């Protein structure tokens, strides 16, 4: 456009613009608009893309008409134009946003648009949906859908929004990360049915039982997504009833399913191969296993891939060929299998001994065990008499060492412990004698001394010595210790010799009983028995059983007589022996089958004893020729210990002192006891272990020289060796093997001391417990005890019943005696912490809400019996020991007391049962109920499928009226019972509390400091002391107070302490 044209009059310009609007450039527009008004509708009626795309033009036009923007292209929308639109309060329609989405970038406009039309949120970019927008949406009543939540996490943060979203679109629940129970309930109420994919994509949904149940209601196969916490026999049984059969993938994805027989049985019936997935504790029906195994042979590879199979007793008993894989293999079975391999001089391999594989319960690395076998390898030649003699000498030295240990152990209990006590006794006697002028006082002392030395010194000598001292005493001479010491040393030495001889002969007698006779000796004994049998058969003229005829027997006699008559020595002897004389001798021999020297002497009336002995020998020799016809029965071959004792004592000629079998047995036993930590410690010094290997065949013959002792020696060998040699620099050539033997007494005590467990651990558990569980296991039991000591509640009503001779108590959760339920009374029980089979039941009984145990104790607090107690849903099941002989009436009493409490507490406990497989329980008059879950729900508690009803909430007429619900949640909890306050506690009780407070200290630095300061409790330092089960208050002699409470949650601890303090008007001033 010509610039001069702008000078034209307005009307002309208006006309020009109207006619040529489509041709106007931006420059033209900007120039013309200064002269004439350009109507905004031109932009809708005329076409001019240049103007419509220009932001300057738009900006100008907006100043005149805010609504004009709809005629412009999106390119024209500069920030300035958008701001103008925002400040112009223009109403943006939904269709505007299609064309101009950038308008939403303006906060003000965006908010205003959302306020006007909340659905515009759908047009917004995810990043544009701010918290502000979300709250505007919420205010405007907008109903978000699943897509909204997916696009913007802010939606999920608004509680009301979430609720509204779920109410209208239940699938929204999938997008809410922090779901509440309320959200879940709302979603379900509004028709949400979760699907498998939902749980896979949003695993947090699994936390909600309701969702799982809803999913399960619509599809029983949804049980596959139930985790351990939610899976229960109720759902499993229902799924099974509704026809669910798990697929292989289900079993892989949810191994918890493999625990249930009603899941696994149909699976296995359908596809026997899937038997490999069987869970460790799934008690499957034997018929199902048999059928499956007919169609599918389980291989070694299967067991290696699925080690749970080896844990399943019900299947392993059908696989005898894989017995060594079984986790239920007894120690005896392991020992035997290991011995067989060692005997064959083969390497110990997992192939031969699968139980030495970690997967099948091994405790130590098999390669290291092989290395140790090499280190402890010794040559054993049982036939080598020199070697037998050498070992006999070694054994003798070991016995001497042990006798010395026993002497030292018993010293404090001897009548006179040392030279000082002897001297003091003498002095008191001399004083009495002198005062009373009665020498008879010496008699009693002499008798005591005579007994003390085992009568090794005569009474006369002892009396003479005492009287000499008396004389000196009367004469006022010195009778002090240096004067009497020589005599009393002699007495003490004789006493020691007497003690040692007696102990040694006891040990030798024991060892002899355990030793095997040498084959040579055995043959001699057997031949003697055969000779007796020959004689017996001759007596009874059973010639054919001797392999001869009577004529041949007489011929043998004739030949023997000939040999005697022709013997040079007989001829030279001067005895005139005739054939007739020998025929006379042959008669009693034929009758008795034997000839004695006395008889020969009386018949021949001879003087030459040697000749007569020769004659007897020749006749007896005849019988030797016949013994090959005698076969001894196994019974006749037996050689009793009594017979062994008559042999004249342990010696290397009659006994096999070093025996290969014993070496192998001890080595196997040692290897089975080893754990990784110990074997590593031993192998750190592998180059010197061989020095003590020769002890292996002599272990377990004497109590103090057991495999355990040897293990202690091995684990501390370097340390013990240092202590014995006392040389830091061992460059001197020392024969350690010999030195160790010489000092075997020190070696044993040092090794045992170095392996001993810290006193604090032992005291925290208490001597009673340690003596039962064993010192080396005490740490494991203490760790478990620390887990149960703070148990406060349970689902089983506790009982405390006083019977005539004993008491019954349950619910005393922190009573350490409960740790012994598998050790005391029921010593063959597998319900124990260290028994792989029964540990889960042990843990449930002592530590879980659903378990308890009632202990039967006499009034001296000795454990007499126990009964395990389990709560499942609406019932309690008690399980007795197999050999328990307690009357059913006693259990009924326990049950009634429990039921009474449950009713008073309004608990949903309906029934109390006792296992029906105890034959000692007289079930007449009781209702018996059968349910397979009785067996499967209490693993290793030895329950059967039936139970006897002892008590019920309501009167039950017959078993069909009983409604068992294994899974209903228990309504009530019962608080643990507490021990009564002790007003005269023992030192051990208080020491135990002190030790427990240290092991329970959480701050490790503080724990070490407290442990360093630890002292047992000595009553003599205190005036008074009071103690509860987990606290004590002690008042020192100076009146100051010491108090300790274990860090436990039971509020009654502080109530009890307060009560004691209040009654004693005490105020605490020192807290440990």
């Amino acid at each position, binding site marked *: 456009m010509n610039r001069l044209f702008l000078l034209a009059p307005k009307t002309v310009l208006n006309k020009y613009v109207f006619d040529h609007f489509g041709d106007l450039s931006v420059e033209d527009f900007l120039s013309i608009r200064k002269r004439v008004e350009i109507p905004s509708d031109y932009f809708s009626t005329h076409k001019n893309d240049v103007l419509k795309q220009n932001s300057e033009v738009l900006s100008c036009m907006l100043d005149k008409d805010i609504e004009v923007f709809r005629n412009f292209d999106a390119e024209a929308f500069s920030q300035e134009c958008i701001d103008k639109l925002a400040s112009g309060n223009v109403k943006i329609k939904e269709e505007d946003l299609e064309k101009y989405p950038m308008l939403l970038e303006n906060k003000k406009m965006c908010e205003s648009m959302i306020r006007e039309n909340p659905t515009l949120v759908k047009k917004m970019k995810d990043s544009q949906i701010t918290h502000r927008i979300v709250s505007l949406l919420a205010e405007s009543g907008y109903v978000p859908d699943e897509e909204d939540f997916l696009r913007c996490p802010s939606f999920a943060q608004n509680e009301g929004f979430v609720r509204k979203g779920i109410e209208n679109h239940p699938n929204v629940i999938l997008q809410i990360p922090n779901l509440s129970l309320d959200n879940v309930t709302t979603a379900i109420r509004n028709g949400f049915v979760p699907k498998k994919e939902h749980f896979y994509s949003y695993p947090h949904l699994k936390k909600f039982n309701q969702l799982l149940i809803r999913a399960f209601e619509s599809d029983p196969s949804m049980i596959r997504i139930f985790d351990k916490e939610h899976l229960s026999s109720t759902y499993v049984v229902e799924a099974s009833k509704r026809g669910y059969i798990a697929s292989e993938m289900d079993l892989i994805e949810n191994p918890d399913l493999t625990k249930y027989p009603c899941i696994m049985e149909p699976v296995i019936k359908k596809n026997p191969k899937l038997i490999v997935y069987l869970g460790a504790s799934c008690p499957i029906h034997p018929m199902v296993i048999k059928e499956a195994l007919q169609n599918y042979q389980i291989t070694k590879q299967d067991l290696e891939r699925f080690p749970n199979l080896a844990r399943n007793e019900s299947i392993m008993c059908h696989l005898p060929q894989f017995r060594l894989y079984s986790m239920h293999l007894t120690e005896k079975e392991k020992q035997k299998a290991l011995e067989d391999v060692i005997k064959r001089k083969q390497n110990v391999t997992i192939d031969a001994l699968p139980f030495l594989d970690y997967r099948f319960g091994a405790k130590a690395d098999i390669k290291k065990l092989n290395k140790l076998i090499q280190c402890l390898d010794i040559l054993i030649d049982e036939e080598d008499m020199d070697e037998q003699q050498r070992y006999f000498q070694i054994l003798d030295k070991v016995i001497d060492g042990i006798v010395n*240990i026993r002497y*030292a*152990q018993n010293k404090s209990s001897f009548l006179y412990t040392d030279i000082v006590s002897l001297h003091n006794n003498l002095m008191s006697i001399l004083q009495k004698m002198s005062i009373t002028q009665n020498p008879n006082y010496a008699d009693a002392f002499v008798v005591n001394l005579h007994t003390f030395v085992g009568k090794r010194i005569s009474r006369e000598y002892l009396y003479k010595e005492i009287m000499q001292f008396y004389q000196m005493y009367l004469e006022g001479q010195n009778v002090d210790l240096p004067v009497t010491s020589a005599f009393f040393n002699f007495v003490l030495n004789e006493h020691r010799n007497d003690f040692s001889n007696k102990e040694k002969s006891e040990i030798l007698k024991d060892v002899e009983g355990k030793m095997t006779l040498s084959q040579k000796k055995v043959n001699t004994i057997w031949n003697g028995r055969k000779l007796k049998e020959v004689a017996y058969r001759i007596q009874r003229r059973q010639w054919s059983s001797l392999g001869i005829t009577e004529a041949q027997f007489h011929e043998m006699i004739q030949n023997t007589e000939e040999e005697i008559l022709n013997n040079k020595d007989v001829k030279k002897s001067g005895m005139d022996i005739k054939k007739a004389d020998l025929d006379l001798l042959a008669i009693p021999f034929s009758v008795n089958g034997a000839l004695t020297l006395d008889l020969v002497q009386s018949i021949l009336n001879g003087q030459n004893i040697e000749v007569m002995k020769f004659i007897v020998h020749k006749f007896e020799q005849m019988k030797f020729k016949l013994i090959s016809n005698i076969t001894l029965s196994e019974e006749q071959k037996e050689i009793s210990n009594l017979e062994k004792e008559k042999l004249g004592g342990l010696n290397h000629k009659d006994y096999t002192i070093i025996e290969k079998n014993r070496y192998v047995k001890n080595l196997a036993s040692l290897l089975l006891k080893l754990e990784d930590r110990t074997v590593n410690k031993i192998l750190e010094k592998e180059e010197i272990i061989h020095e003590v290997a020769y002890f292996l065949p002599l272990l377990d013959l004497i109590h103090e020289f057991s495999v355990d002792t040897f293990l202690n020696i091995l684990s501390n060998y*370097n*340390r013990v060796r*240092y*202590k014995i040699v006392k040389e*830091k620099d061992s460059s001197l050539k020392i024969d350690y093997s010999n030195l160790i033997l010489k000092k075997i007494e020190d070696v044993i*005590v*040092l090794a*045992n*001391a*170095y392996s*001993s467990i*810290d*006193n*604090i651990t032992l005291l925290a558990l208490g001597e009673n417990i340690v003596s039962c569980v064993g010192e080396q296991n005490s740490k494991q039991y203490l760790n478990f005890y620390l887990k149960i000591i703070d148990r406060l509640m349970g689902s089983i009503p506790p009982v405390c019943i006083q019977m005539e001779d004993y008491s019954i108590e349950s619910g005393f959760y922190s009573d350490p005696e409960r740790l012994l339920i598998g050790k005391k009374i029921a010593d063959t029980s597998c319900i124990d912490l260290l028994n792989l089979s029964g540990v889960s039941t042990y843990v449930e009984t002592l530590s879980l809400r659903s378990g308890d145990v009632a202990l039967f104790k006499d009034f001296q607090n000795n454990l007499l019996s126990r009964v395990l107690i389990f709560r499942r849903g609406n019932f309690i099941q008690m399980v007795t020991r197999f050999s328990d002989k307690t009357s059913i009436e006693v259990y009924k009493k326990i049950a009634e007391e429990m039921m009474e409490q449950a009713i008073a507490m309004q608990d949903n406990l309906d029934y109390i049962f006792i296992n029906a497989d105890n034959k000692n329980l007289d079930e007449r008059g009781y209702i018996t109920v059968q349910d397979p879950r009785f067996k499967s729900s209490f693993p290793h508690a030895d329950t059967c499928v039936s139970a006897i009803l002892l008590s019920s909430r309501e009167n039950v007429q017959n078993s069909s009226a009983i409604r068992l619900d294994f899974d209903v949640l228990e309504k009530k909890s019962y608080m643990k019972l507490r021990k009564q306050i002790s007003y005269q506690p023992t030192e051990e009780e208080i020491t135990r509390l002190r030790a427990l407070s240290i092991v329970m200290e959480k701050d*490790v*630095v503080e724990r*070490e400091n407290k*442990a*360093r*300061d*630890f*002292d047992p409790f000595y009553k003599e330092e205190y005036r008074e002391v009071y103690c509860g089960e987990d606290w004590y208050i002690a008042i020192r002699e100076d009146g100051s107070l010491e108090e300790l409470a274990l860090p436990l949650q039971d509020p009654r601890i502080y109530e009890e302490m307060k009560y004691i303090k209040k009654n004693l008007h005490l105020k605490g001033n020192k807290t440990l």
Partner: protein
Amino acid sequence: MKTIGVVHFYNGEYGVILREKEEIDFSIEDISFQQEIHEGDLVAFRVEERFPAIKLARNITRIDHISKNTIEKEE
């Protein structure tokens, strides 16, 4: 009860503490927090007795170091 002694011998695995010429055995497991301990160190510990008269040090902690010469002179 806490007591004090001087490490007389220690080879990194086990050792002996002297308390008034009385020998008390210990092993690395008895040292609190596996502290570095050397011969000549003054240490605090608790004593346990084992049959017949073996003394073991537990919960050992290092207090200070005393030079070897001082110990030998005292001995």
